[in-house]
C-alpha cells in the first residue's frame, strides 16, 4: 500500500481533487519489464480536477507525471491515466 498511499497523498497536495481512483494493476504485469517482486509498479488512475480545465490532454498527463516524479523514480514503472475535468467525468460516467 505504500506507493498507492503516496500517490494519493501527492496528487491531493498538487491538485484540487474532485475524484481520485488509485487502482494497483501490478499483478497484471507480473513478469513484464518494470515488474517488482513487491508489486506497486503499475497503477491505474482516474484523476478528476477543475485544474485540468483548459489544459490539453498531453499537458494534463505531464502534470500528473511531474507530481509523481519521486514515485516514478523509485518503484512505479507506468501509470494508466485518465485525467478529466468534473464535467468530462460526468459525461464519461465510468
Amino acid at each position, binding site marked *: 500500500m505504500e506507493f498507492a498511499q503516496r500517490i494519493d497523498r501527492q496528487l491531493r497536495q498538487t491538485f484540487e481533487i474532485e475524484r481520485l481512483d488509485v487502482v494497483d494493476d501490478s499483478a497484471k504485469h507480473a513478469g513484464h519489464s518494470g515488474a517488482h517482486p513487491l508489486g506497486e509498479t503499475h497503477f491505474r488512475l482516474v484523476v478528476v480536477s477543475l485544474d485540468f480545465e483548459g489544459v490539453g*490532454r*498531453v499537458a494534463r*498527463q*505531464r502534470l500528473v*507525471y511531474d507530481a509523481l516524479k519521486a514515485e*516514478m523514480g523509485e518503484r512505479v514503472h*507506468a*501509470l*494508466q*491515466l*485518465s485525467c478529466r475535468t468534473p464535467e468530462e467525468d460526468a*459525461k*464519461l460516467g465510468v
Partner: protein
Amino acid sequence: MADQSVHDRIQQEISDNDVTVYMKGTPTFPQCGFSAAVVQVLNHLGVTYHGVNVLEDPGLREGIKEFSSWPTIPQLYVKGEFLGGCDIVREMFQTGELQDTLQQKGIEVQNAA
C-alpha cells in the same frame, strides 16, 4: 541523453509519415496490450500509419521517451506532432475527438461516426 542521431531519425520519421506509432512489437504482432490498443483504434478507423517497433532498437526505445518527454510507449504522432499515449488515444477515440483531430489534420478516416 540519447545521441543526436536517434533524435534526428525520429524527427525524420514523424515528418515523412502522416501518422506514426512507436510501439512494442509490430502492427501485426503487438507485444504489449497498450500498443495493441492503439493499433486497434487506428485499424478500426482505417487510418494508414507507420508502425515502429522500439523493441528492435534499445537506443530508440529510450530515445523516443526523451524526444517527447513522455515516459511510456506507445506514442502516437500525427503530422509531426505528439498526440498522446494509449490512454489519450483511447479516450479521444471514445469521445470522437480523435476522429475529428485526424480529419482536421487532413488524415483520411473511415468509420468516423
